[in-house]
């Protein structure tokens, strides 16, 4: 009886744990796809630069632009780099944030990330390649210079707009790892607590009976 209870408890916990992980992984992959896909980038919803934004020092602007270019060169593979450069709308503080994140990656981590992106973003690569093929070299140069100009003038340095908040606002709550962690922990807790208190009346007690030696 007691052994069965242990088995049932263990299996339920494992099932709920697996369930929460199973829900998390597809959601995470879906969220990554959504960020990387060019068609899904919310480029049209960027905010217009304010006078205050454009009043930043030229040195800061130059540093930021240079840093962005370096990050793009260091952290992205050739096809992916092209795709990223194309899909990220220049001139937005929000899109610079992932670039800053990537800056912290070591070369090994960057390589891992590239591999990961290769596997997970086949559709994204395919679309990027098709688009690359259709664009001429002159158009790309023109677009790049245009992007740099846009980037220079549209960078949002305002401290009143923290980047992570803006990034979080753009990610649906159900695609966030915290959400699925809470779901998983809650499910496991529910199962365990339910077993603990729901079956308490069936807990067992054993009595060993021996005879006192004369």
């Amino acid at each position, binding site marked *: *009886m*007691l052994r069965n*209870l*242990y088995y049932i*408890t*263990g299996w339920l*916990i494992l099932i709920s*744990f697996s369930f*929460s*992980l199973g829900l*998390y992984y597809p959601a*995470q992959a879906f969220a990554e796809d959504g960020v990387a896909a060019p068609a899904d980038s919310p480029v049209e919803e960027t905010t217009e630069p304010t006078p205050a934004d454009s009043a930043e020092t030229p040195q800061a602007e130059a540093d930021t632009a240079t840093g962005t270019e370096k990050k793009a060169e260091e952290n992205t593979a050739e096809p992916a780099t092209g795709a990223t450069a194309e899909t990220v709308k220049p001139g937005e503080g929000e899109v610079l944030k992932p670039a800053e994140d990537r800056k912290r990656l070591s070369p090994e981590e960057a390589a891992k990330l590239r591999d990961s992106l290769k596997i997970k973003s086949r559709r994204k690569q395919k679309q990027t390649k098709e688009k690359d093929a259709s664009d001429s070299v002159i158009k790309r140069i023109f677009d790049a210079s245009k992007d740099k100009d846009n980037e220079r003038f549209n960078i949002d340095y305002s401290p009143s707009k923290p980047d992570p908040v803006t990034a979080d606002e753009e990610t649906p709550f159900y695609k966030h*790892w915290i959400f*699925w*962690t809470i779901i*998983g*922990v809650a499910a*496991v*807790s529910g199962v*365990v607590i339910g*077993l*603990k208190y729901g079956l*308490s*009346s*069936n*807990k*067992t*007690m*054993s*009595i*060993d*009976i*021996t*005879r*006192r030696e*004369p």
Partner: protein
Amino acid sequence: MKRTLMLLCLAFLCLVCIACDDTQNMGLALELVTPDNQDPFEGVVRLSIKIEDAGDKERETTYPFEPADGFDDLSFRLKDLDRYSSFELEVRGEDIEGQTVSRGQSTVINSSEMEDDVFSIYFAKVNGISTPPLSMGKARNNLRIVVPGYNDAVIIGGSDTNIDGTELDSIAEVENFSVLKYTVGNLNYGDEDLRLASGVVGHSASYLDSANILVLGGYSRSGEEISYLETPLVISANVEEYLIETKCKDFNPRRTLHAATTIPGFRQVFITGGVDEDGNILADAALYDDDLHTSTKVFDLKTPRRGHTQVSVFDGNEEYAGMLICGGTDSDNKLCEWWSVDSEGSRVIESDLRETLTGHSAATISNGRAIMVGGTIDGVPVDSALLFRLSCLESGCDTLKRIDSLLETARSDASLSSFGSGLLLCGGRDASGAVLSSCEVLMIGEDAKITHYSTIEMAHARVGHSSALLPDGNVLIAGGWNETEGALDSMEIYTPQ
């Protein structure tokens, strides 16, 4: 991703640990204690083990156990037992016809307190007297036994006595018989053994609802020196102050052969009569109040009494009605007195019996009755009993009814204990003055129907011993004296049907 996995793994491990910890099996151990002088498994073909919820008597489970190769190596496990927060466990040994031939019962066991611990059951033949593998630390004659609570019997006072009957030093050590563990040892508080300031004999010991024990009267003997107990003592359940000296108001506690009985529900002890240090027979009655720790004289009995009996009487609703005081007087027309709660003094019970009764034993029985068994009338041991009926006190029927030839052996100075629907009368002296080893079992019926059931032999003849009903339903007989062994340290146990 790593953080997610780490958090989930930690949560998983913590919760599994919690769940596993709580679902651990509660383990208790029961030890069957068997007598030294009998085999309780003789003729037993089946054990029936019944566990009964102490809070709900209707909730019980019975486990049959049929041993294939006898009971010599009895060791088995009961699994899948529902959790009982507190329970009583009974073991019955049945013969081939299903009759119970052996029996043992636990006191109330609290599961959580006894987890991973051992509790004991004394398993012996029913309606038999057996010798447990226990003995007191000291041989004691004229000892007193008090049963406080559910798990213990406390043995107080007494004296060593020579084979020729010469009284030796009185005993100051207080011993504790644990019914829960079936062990005997000095009563201790923490690491300290309880010891009275001096030995005491000829005293009374009364258990109060407050878990205190009042030790009153008696004297201490050391060699030829005798000193009467100056102040009544309270053995308290309070560890910080476990021995309390109490006060007296208009009452001299220096006496022996007195009677002291607890008044149920009042935290008071009613004290009457006795003999003072000058040999005077006393008539005063006092009340000890446990809240004030003071004994106060309340009235005088109608006649001085010593060596008398005093029992509480309960009405048909089992509510305390009053106190019956009988015998111990030289006056032949004041055999018994009655003191009810609401009266200022006692009154003599009208009776046609004109006799002086002493050396008898008394017990309360159900339905407003009390019984006085044996004793000597005009110096001669008798085999009769006197039945008191509360219902006749006002109605005019015989309030005191004699039941002749109730006993198989006329005897005095015996011990008397009531158990369930029976009475056990043990030891004492017969008409020739010899100390008796027999016990007689009396069955209590309706009204005046009291009958002799059986006579059983103890391992030792005893007089000056004491007996008490234990919380496990057995009757303990301990100490005393006989002509061949002197003072006794042995114990015997009667197991009712």
